[in-house]
């Protein structure tokens, strides 16, 4: 039958003859999960948005004060003008006091000097698409830029934590013995300190900034992944295929990372996406407390920190913008993780 079909189109026979790879089977299962597909699409939209903000095409001018302070969203219309009390003009006749005014001779000179500097009065928008913050920056641009920061911190932290956890877990699970004991001890040390205290201790030392927040979260968050990777390596290291690889002379490193690692990579991927969500939430809290990203950056956490005082004055839009972006991304990402887990490890389905 395959001879009849044009070359390049996989025939049914050859499909069946080769057993399906884990990833292909997972993709097949994922496509059937409608909620999963929707969440993947939403996450992809966010990825595009982040790529656009990171390359400066969108929201690069989030720091510009384009509107009046706390400009309301466009659909609400401009804020009613505040009542101003104008001081009454003095009634008496104008008296020339230049004879006694010690500054009088210099007025002319100052006026000339001032004329050298041109100031362009920027017309400030009365309303902005989704409102402005207290200095008149566009909340929508801030939210998009903040999405980039928050997601980047979460992703970078999760990737570093995954690398640490995978390497240590692989070493502990594969070798056991002294190395295993030492790593177990390290694990016990890290897990005996409550997470938040460990994060704060690291925060004191590393200071602020996007990179250090990601690093702090990674150094605290690797333990769960380590534990799982270790268990998987422990299980796999005595399996036949690994022994066979050893028999044909595969080196230790090759057995660990070329043979076992691909077989446990789905576990790692699921764990990593769980870490992303957790780290994003931690970043928001750290930034709120002033221990997160630097003052020149904007993230969902810094937006929420500003929103707290704005809310009392009735300016709710920054809070809503940050919350909406965060809720949409985190929900989509969590659902994607669930779908991913169901697709990659069908045994776990329905447990949660």
């Amino acid at each position, binding site marked *: 039958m395959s001879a009849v079909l044009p070359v390049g189109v996989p025939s049914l026979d050859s499909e069946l003859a080769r057993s399906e790879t884990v990833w292909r089977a997972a993709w097949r299962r994922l496509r059937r999960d409608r909620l999963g597909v929707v969440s993947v699409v939403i996450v992809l939209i966010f990825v595009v948005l982040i790529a656009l903000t990171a390359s400066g095409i969108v929201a690069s001018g989030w720091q510009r004060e384009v509107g009046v302070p706390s400009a309301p969203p466009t659909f609400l219309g401009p804020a009613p003008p505040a009542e101003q009390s104008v001081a009454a003009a003095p009634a008496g006749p104008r008296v020339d006091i230049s004879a006694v005014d010690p500054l009088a001779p210099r007025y002319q000179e100052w006026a000339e000097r001032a004329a050298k500097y041109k100031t362009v009065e920027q017309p400030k928008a009365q309303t902005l698409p989704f409102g402005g913050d207290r200095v008149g920056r566009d909340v929508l641009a801030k939210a998009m830029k903040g999405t980039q920061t928050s997601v980047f911190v979460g992703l970078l932290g999760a990737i570093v934590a995954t690398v640490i956890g995978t390497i240590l877990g692989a070493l502990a699970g594969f070798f056991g013995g002294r190395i295993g004991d030492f790593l177990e*001890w*390290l694990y*016990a*040390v*890290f897990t*005996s*300190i*409550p997470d*938040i*205290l*460990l994060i*704060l*201790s*690291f*925060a*004191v*030392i*590393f200071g602020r900034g996007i990179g250090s927040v990601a690093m702090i979260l990674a150094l605290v968050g690797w333990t769960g992944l380590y534990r799982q990777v270790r268990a998987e390596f422990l299980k796999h290291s005595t399996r036949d295929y690994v022994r066979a690889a050893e028999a044909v002379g595969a080196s230790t490193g090759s057995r660990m990372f070329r043979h076992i690692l691909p077989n446990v990579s789905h576990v790692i991927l699921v764990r990593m996406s769980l870490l992303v969500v957790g780290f994003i*939430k931690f970043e*928001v*809290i750290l930034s*709120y*407390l*002033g*221990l997160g990203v630097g003052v020149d950056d904007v993230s*969902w*956490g810094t937006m*929420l920190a500003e*929103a*707290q005082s704005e*809310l*009392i004055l009735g300016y709710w839009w920054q*809070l809503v913008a940050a*919350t909406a972006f*965060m*809720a949409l991304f*985190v*929900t989509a990402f*969590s*659902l994607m993780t669930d779908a991913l887990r169901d697709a990659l490890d069908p045994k776990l389905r329905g*447990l*949660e």
Partner: protein
Amino acid sequence: MTAYLIRRLWQIVPTLLGVVLLVFFLFKAFGGDPAEVLAGLNASPQTVEAIRTQLGLNQPWYVQLYIYLKGIVTFDWGRSWATNESVAHLFATRLPATLTVMLPILILDTLVALPIAMWVAYRRGSLGDRAIMIVSTLALSVSFLVYIIVGQYVFGFELGWFPVQGWSDSVVTNLVTYVPLPVMLAVLVGIAPQTRLYRTFFLDELGHDYVRTARAKGMNERTVLFRHVLRNAMVPILTNIGLALPGIFVGSFLIEVFFSIPGLGREVILAVNRNDYPVIQALTVYLAMLTMLINLAVDILYKLVDPRVVLK
């Protein structure tokens, strides 16, 4: 049992030593110079040098480590650099406020989540089950921060049901006036993930053969659920509560910062902002020790809940 206890306590020693070493070298290697932090910005070099000598910072690192270890063993945590208050006194005065807030949260959380989780697991797949799962996914996606900001604004500021923030010296006033709002918000937020987790535990138990056997021999559902399933599900639930216990000592620092509750959590944040190393170091070591002891207590509790558990 006694042998088990002694062995477990003995096992704590190397881990605790690890925590101490981690904290010591972390701050030694990456933290700023304590003498300069202490002396302030306008200090003369002589002052800095004097402080350095006083703290033993001129000594080699192993002497410093010895001084540090001695402090821990003798429960002498030193003094806060910022306020010169002794760290032991700081713990003693801040802990009650934290517990006043955190204990009600833990108790209410468990008491509310348990029946809901049981009901949801029992009616697995029903509308109520799915609704609760969806709500909990959605609720989890927004930062806790948003709930406190909005909750404080709505209930404290707009409706005026509770004071926006505050604290008093009387436990009763605190419990009646200042605690309800933070506790209510924390429980509302915590209930969803808690229910989700406990539901998993119940589902796990409901799938076992003994449940089918009990039903087959005509036992009524109430007995099956409360005498058999609940008792078995208590093991993972207790583990979970045990894991949450050390957390109540740090408190929800976010709640404490937000509602100006003078507890340990707020003190930690203050210490972090002031680079107050002794407070952070002591609290870290102290809580790590507490965590390990609580884990031990939970393991012993298993034995009481489930006689099949063999402690070894």
